[in-house]
């Protein structure tokens, strides 16, 4: 394996992957993911409850539930849903994270997989679940959490230095998952649609199709779908841009400028899909999918200062850690 100090490509990848980060950055990611899951489960609660009423003839288990030969008992669905919601609140608050993180990951895996086990794979929940798994098994509650407050209240020593690879690596892994997910989606366009996908006709027809589908179900479609479909010249550049954004996702890992450019483009792409097709991918649309690419603690620090809790209640152990961090940072 390449040594971290190596100047080769492998060495640079290694340094990037194993970069140090402050515990607050991982904590901020935990809070964002936890908040998203709590809101998502609360808003979609009736949808998940209704999963218990699905007809057995439509049940087609996928993923970790492949072995089931019949739908789960409704009580199991309801219990899993409640468990996921309770665990998500705990993860958001950073309370009992070592237990509640894995509980949330397990419950969401079952719940989301079950939702896709009715003859229609949904693709809204893949990335959020993968990020939840990363957060669940990472030391994400060492700061900005109930766990940290309890430790401080007991005057217990902090769990090691306040910065390190153990906080940085989960974020880099989550960022990689986001990037690779987009690359796979971009490759799928060419693989399943052929290079002809890039001429834009398929994209235009998809937009027209989603509008017509809503029509025949008696629902309103996007008011911009019609005018947009009339602009046939627009769809070649839109199709090329869409695939370029997806396949170009790894560029976001290379520099701050490229990251900002790519994230803006990706959020714009999802906003366009939401506006033109009424199909919302909330996790990337609200930016949570891209959160591991950013120094989140800076925003968190601003919020902390706003509430004036940033420096008031540090324990001696925490102040010692921060002093060590300062020295280490100064030397490196």
């Amino acid at each position, binding site marked *: *394996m390449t040594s*971290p100090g190596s100047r080769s490509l492998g060495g640079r990848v290694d340094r990037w*992957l*194993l970069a140090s980060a402050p515990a607050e950055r991982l904590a901020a990611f935990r809070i964002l993911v936890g908040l998203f899951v709590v809101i998502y489960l609360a808003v979609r609660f009736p*949808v998940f409850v*209704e999963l218990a*009423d699905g007809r057995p*003839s*439509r049940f087609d288990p*996928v*993923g970790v539930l492949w072995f089931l030969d019949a739908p789960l008992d409704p009580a199991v669905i309801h219990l899993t849903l409640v468990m996921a919601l309770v665990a998500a609140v705990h993860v958001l608050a950073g309370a009992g994270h070592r237990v509640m993180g894995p509980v949330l990951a397990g419950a969401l*895996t079952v719940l*989301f*997989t079950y939702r896709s086990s*009715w*003859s*229609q*794979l*949904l*693709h809204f*929940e*893949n990335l959020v*679940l*993968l990020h939840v798994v990363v957060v669940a098994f990472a030391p994400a509650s060492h700061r900005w959490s109930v766990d940290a407050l309890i430790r401080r209240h007991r005057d217990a020593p902090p769990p090691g230095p306040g910065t390190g*690879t*153990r906080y940085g*690596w989960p974020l880099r*892994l989550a960022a*990689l*998952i986001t990037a*690779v*997910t987009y690359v*796979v*989606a971009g490759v*799928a*366009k060419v*693989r*399943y*649609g052929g290079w002809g996908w890039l001429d834009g*006709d*398929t*994209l235009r*027809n*998809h*937009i*027209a*199709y989603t*509008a*017509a*589908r*809503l*029509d*025949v*179900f*008696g*629902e309103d*479609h996007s008011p911009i779908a*019609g005018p947009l*479909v*009339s602009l046939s010249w627009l769809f070649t550049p839109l199709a090329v841009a869409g695939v370029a954004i997806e396949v170009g996702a790894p560029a976001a890992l290379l520099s701050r400028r490229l990251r900002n450019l790519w994230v803006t483009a990706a959020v714009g792409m999802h906003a366009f899909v939401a506006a033109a097709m009424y199909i919302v991918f909330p996790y990337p649309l609200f930016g949570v999918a891209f959160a591991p690419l950013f120094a989140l603690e800076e925003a968190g620090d601003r919020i902390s200062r706003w509430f004036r809790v940033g420096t008031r209640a540090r324990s001696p152990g925490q102040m010692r850690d921060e002093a060590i961090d300062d020295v280490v940072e100064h030397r490196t």
Partner: protein
Amino acid sequence: MNRMRRAATAAVLAALVMPIVRNHDSFPLSTYPMYARQRDDVVVLPTAVGVTADGERERLGLDVIGMSDDPLIVGALLRQTARLGEGSLRVLCDDIAARAANRDVDASIIEVIEERHDVVARAQGHESLASTTVLTTCEVPST
């Protein structure tokens, strides 16, 4: 510890890429085929409508047809039921009729149908319906 992190990263990356290599979509590891397949401008759209006493066809809404707010799910329900045959279509039709009755929909009959549309023309507000195929019908129970 770093060796474990490198190995875990490699394993996760391999798992993410595997669906494309195996050409197998699943959850949460996916090929993400949304909007990827070629789509013509003329397509068959399954749906269900209510027929009033005057013989007018009325759209029913996603919730009445498929108990969902997601057109993807309701569309899949209709397509899959049509594949299963007449018996399943009758059961679905009766379910829709019961929901229509509960929601006081102005309809005496439910038709599960397939409409063939030029979707680009339809999005532009032009006449788009090429044909309608009635798959099954059922009566709306009186409440």
